[in-house]
């Protein structure tokens, strides 16, 4: 995809907001620049690895327990909710509590990726405006940081698994590709939301409310079984909430394996579809607006 307007891009009194970035040097397409940025950023793991750790350490530098505070607070939440809702819904606690525990841990990762995605470039303003680094570095940094938090929270899973004698068996290994797919989605979400919210600052407010609503629409504190056999509401089959809800599938590809079940094929397809569609949309936007990010932040 060559752009044939190399030097003809000087517009007197043009409108930079709508203006596309200047044409790349001849022989280099903007698509190649965008893909390069994404690949180069991934290769700079020493950079985002260090910065991601630094983010965690900054938050907890003077506390003795550090990130384990997160683990403790989530553990308390999961424990109390698990016991309360098991009796409210009249469910077996040995099934329900592990379900809630894993659900919360995975949701924590997903919502963290989305929330941090909005801050990707805005939060890195100082770096973006001073060093010529692949911008995707800031996305990988956020994904890595969220994975570190996830790893801390995973302790809750271990405790719950021991308490309730859950052994996921071979199915448990499927959590790894599931997690990898979440991260793959996390990267495009960070690039896209980071870019859009650098330009339009109210995006993060909208995103926060969408994530909040999605939390209640997604079976995390309620189980999918509670929906089965329910009569339709306003002519809509309630089980649609599961099938067309991408968040359900995103949660499911990690939660189901950790509870010892293979996720449904539909969930894999959905997560792959979200990744494919998301990356496509992201690359279209990133290709066009990558060069403007430094001006926007």
């Amino acid at each position: 995809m060559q752009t044939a307007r190399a030097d003809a891009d000087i517009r007197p009194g043009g409108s930079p907001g709508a203006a596309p970035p200047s044409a790349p040097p001849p022989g280099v397409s903007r698509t190649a620049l965008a893909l390069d940025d994404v690949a180069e950023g991934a290769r700079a793991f020493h950079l985002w690895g260090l910065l991601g750790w630094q983010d965690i350490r900054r938050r907890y530098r003077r506390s003795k327990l550090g990130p384990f505070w997160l683990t403790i607070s989530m553990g308390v939440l999961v424990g109390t909710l698990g016991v309360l809702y098991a009796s409210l819904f009249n469910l077996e606690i040995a099934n329900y509590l592990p379900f809630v525990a894993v659900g919360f841990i995975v949701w924590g990762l997903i919502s963290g990726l989305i929330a941090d995605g909005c801050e990707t470039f805005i939060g890195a303003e100082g770096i973006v405006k001073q060093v010529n680094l692949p911008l995707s570095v800031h996305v990988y940094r956020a994904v890595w940081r969220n994975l570190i938090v996830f790893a801390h929270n995973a302790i809750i899973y271990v405790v719950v698994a021991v308490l309730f004698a859950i052994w996921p068996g071979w199915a448990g290994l499927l959590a790894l590709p599931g997690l990898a797919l979440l991260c793959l989605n996390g990267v495009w979400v960070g690039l896209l939301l980071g870019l859009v919210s650098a330009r339009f600052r109210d995006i993060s407010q909208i995103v926060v409310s969408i994530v909040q609503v999605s939390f209640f629409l997604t079976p995390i504190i309620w189980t999918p079984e509670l929906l089965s056999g329910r009569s339709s509401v306003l002519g809509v089959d309630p089980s649609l909430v599961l099938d067309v809800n991408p968040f359900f599938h995103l949660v499911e590809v990690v939660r189901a394996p950790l509870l010892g079940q293979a996720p449904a094929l539909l969930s894999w397809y959905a997560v792959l579809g979200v990744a494919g569609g998301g990356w496509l949309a992201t690359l279209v936007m990133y290709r066009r607006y990558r060069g403007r990010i430094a001006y926007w932040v």
Partner: protein
Amino acid sequence: MSADLSLRLDAVTVDFPVYGADARSLKNNLLRKGTGGLIGRGTDNRLSVRALEDVTLAFERGARVGLVGANGAGKTTLLRVLAGVYEPTGGRVRRRGRVASLFDVSLGMEPDATGYENIVIRGVLLGHPPARVRERMDEIAAFTGLGDYLAMPVHTYSTGMALRLAFAVCTCIAPEILLMDEWIGVGDAAFIEKAGRRMEEFVDSAGLLVLASHNPALLERVCATGVLLDAGRVKASGPIGDVLRRYEERDV
């Protein structure tokens, strides 16, 4: 080192979109004042500031360039274009060589981390693997002259001390192109002396230096060429002495 170290700008123009500014409050301000770039209005009624207009410059290995101009003349924007941070709205930039930039002392500074930790973070941000930064740690630590303070959290540092750290990291790990903004005023006399010497060494070893500063003595000492910017345009360029004289003649 690559043989053909260079920085070239061809007819570079940079327009800044201005968001969140109330258009009406700037209505009376559309014409340029003594400082700042041109404030224009895009076709879709969005405000824009033309920070650089039609800038064509070429620097080769060994060049030592001083940027002068009033506040808002476009010096920082030009440095950011040279560093590759801003893609220009018009024109083209070609850059050969590894860039180390020192625009803002606080880049990547973690206030609660120690001086040593911050040296690593900053070095990595400038594109060096952590191992190489640690190899050079002794040299960098010595140049900062901060001694035991390096083991203290950086929030205990004064601005000048942070500057010493930033400057040391920037110059100790073989840069090819060194870009520096007008930060140096916060250093004490001894440090400015030391920094000046370090920059001389750097250009003597055939690097490429672009320095923006309001300190004529430092510019005359370190730079050979001067570029005078005014409202985003190159007003004059040539031997640093001449350019500084032009700048001082102008009623500021």
